[in-house]
């Protein structure tokens, strides 16, 4: 088999609910004037999570959703064979704002680093493989899928998680001042794609035109920023195993990647 990579599962949570079936046909209409569609702090038990931020917990539940989609348990991804490539445009805003406000305790400071979110996920699932963290919107997630595909296809790991989390609520007033939030609504989201070995190399283009799927994702899910390409992959996975061309546009650049998708029957 030629060394390649393919998407084997996708977990997705948005302010609309879990998966793609819950996405409204028109996010703007469904938002009914709300600027942010929030995601609740997941109710995860355990002393280990007592200091974890909402964003960290969203990362954990996104991986759990991916595991459900893959039909595997967490032991299947534990160890040095699993890479993590994390992306966000804005999920550090809440923890930074809390630190700046001077209300947070000493041990909150490490949580201001974007790397701590995937760090908590890595601890929770025992992921010790290659580890890359990118900051940016949808384009950065396409870059992350490319990097994850390289790591898998190049044999540096057996599988890779591409994880994205976006939260906006705590800094809503700030983000609404920026043009990149328009058109809304801004939809809090967390997604995780599992890439495993396949027989085709992902085809990455660092500069390209947006795909029709990108517009569909924005119309149905709203502004999910770094999570948007993972929403597209979730749609593609529902579509049943055909290769998917996914694009992401951010700050004037569009990147695309074509990935093989392991299909499954569409849910009834």
């Amino acid at each position, binding site marked *: 088999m030629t060394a390649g990579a393919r998407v084997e599962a996708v977990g997705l949570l948005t302010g609309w609910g879990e998966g793609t079936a819950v996405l409204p046909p028109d996010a703007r209409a469904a938002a009914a004037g709300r600027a942010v569609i929030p995601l609740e702090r997941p109710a995860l038990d355990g002393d280990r999570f007592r200091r974890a931020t909402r964003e960290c917990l969203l990362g954990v539940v996104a991986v759990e959703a991916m595991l459900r989609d893959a039909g595997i348990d967490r032991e299947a991804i534990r160890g*040095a064979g699993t890479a*993590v490539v994390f992306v966000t*445009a*804005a999920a*550090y*805003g809440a923890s*930074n*704002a809390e*630190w*700046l406000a001077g209300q947070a305790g*000493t*041990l909150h*400071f*490490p*949580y*201001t*680093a*974007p*790397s*701590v*979110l*995937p*760090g*908590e996920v*890595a*601890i929770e*699932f*025992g*992921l*010790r*493989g*290659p*580890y*890359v*963290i*990118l*900051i*940016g919107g949808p384009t*950065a997630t396409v*870059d992350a899928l*490319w*990097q994850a595909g*390289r790591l898998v296809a190049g044999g*540096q790991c057996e599988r890779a998680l591409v994880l994205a989390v976006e939260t906006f609520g705590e*800094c809503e007033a*700030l*983000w609404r*001042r*920026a*043009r*990149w939030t328009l058109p809304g609504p801004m939809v809090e989201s967390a997604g995780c794609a599992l890439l495993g070995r396949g027989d085709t190399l992902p085809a*990455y*283009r*660092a*500069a390209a035109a947006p795909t029709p799927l990108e517009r569909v994702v924005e119309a149905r899910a709203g502004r999910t920023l770094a999570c948007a390409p993972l929403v597209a992959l979730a749609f593609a996975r529902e579509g049943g195993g055909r290769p998917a061309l996914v694009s992401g546009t951010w*700050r004037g*650049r569009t*990147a695309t990647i074509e990935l093989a998708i392991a299909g499954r029957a569409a849910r009834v």
Partner: protein
Amino acid sequence: MAIVAGGVATPIGLDLDAFWSGLLAGADGLSTIERFPTADLRVGRGGEIKKLPPVALGIRSRAAALLVAAAADLGGRARLDAAPERIAVVAGTALGGVEELEHALAGDGGARRALDALYDSPAHALAAWLGARGPVLTVSSACASGAIALGLGADLLREGAADLVVAGGYDILCRFVMRGFDALRSLARDRVRPFDRRRTGLLLGEAAGLVLLARERDARGPRLGRLLGHGSASDASHIAAPDAQGRGLEAAIRAALAAGDVDVADLDFVSAHGTGTVLNDRIETAVLRRVLGARAGAVPVNSIKGALGHTMGAAATLEAIMCLLAARDGWIPPTVGYEEPDPACDLDYVAGVCRAVRPRRMLSTSLGFGGCNAALVLEGAA
């Protein structure tokens, strides 16, 4: 991948020549912080750049200003001889534009300031200043960012996604991060003493370091050296402390060596992360001892954080540049602050004065919050 040239802005020098001569001379770039109040902190010292070069004046974001200062230095040493859409920028940072975020949250400014608050804004500001219209990536793997940025830059070239890549790292010294490390009691009260028995912690610094990467066949004229391999790994053990056994760091080093097809027996020098904290230096020493094996006592090791402070996102890039300059000139800079050996840190640290050694193949290591580990394997120009 060829590393054609480097450019820097640091507390010991605002260009590559001043940086290098400062390192060789054992300069101390740590001083009393003047740019923001520190009276309420236990420690008010750091590697602060007191005066930005003229090219960076007038740029509102200090992070972007540091990057532009380093890029101007780089531009004086190498031409960006490619179509703008084929020039990529990959910048590593731990803090991004956090100072802009602070201003923006305080209600200062409008849409522009809100946009500047995003951690990827300084990299885009650099790309705009350079006229680069290719991919712009921001890596935020904490204090390992500057290493992973170089690795991703090399990957972009291998992929054919760009013909030239300006890659590196930066971070500023600001109250946000000083208050954090001060609260964690990670800061040294006197000086930074990497691997020294009396070490008590780190001091922070601000800097930017950039290199110009090109495919070997495209690199014309003189060059600094080559990036042979890079690797990263997660600790998956603690969000703010290194893994007690250093498993992630060891995995990153072995991945970088494998990627570069370099045998550990061929390593001539190690630029260590060497923060000066009790834990980091002991764990890093143990990892290097395992990796280097029988040669552990024979391979020179240094840390330049005693001279600059811990420059976070910039650190790994500056250390990579230092390695290549050591190979060029045949001198390894000393570990400023290292004076008294620690039985738990028993490698061949370059101490006191610079050492007359011309390394050919070198290893640079980095660690950061969130269990980030990265390693670079470098080769000096022949």
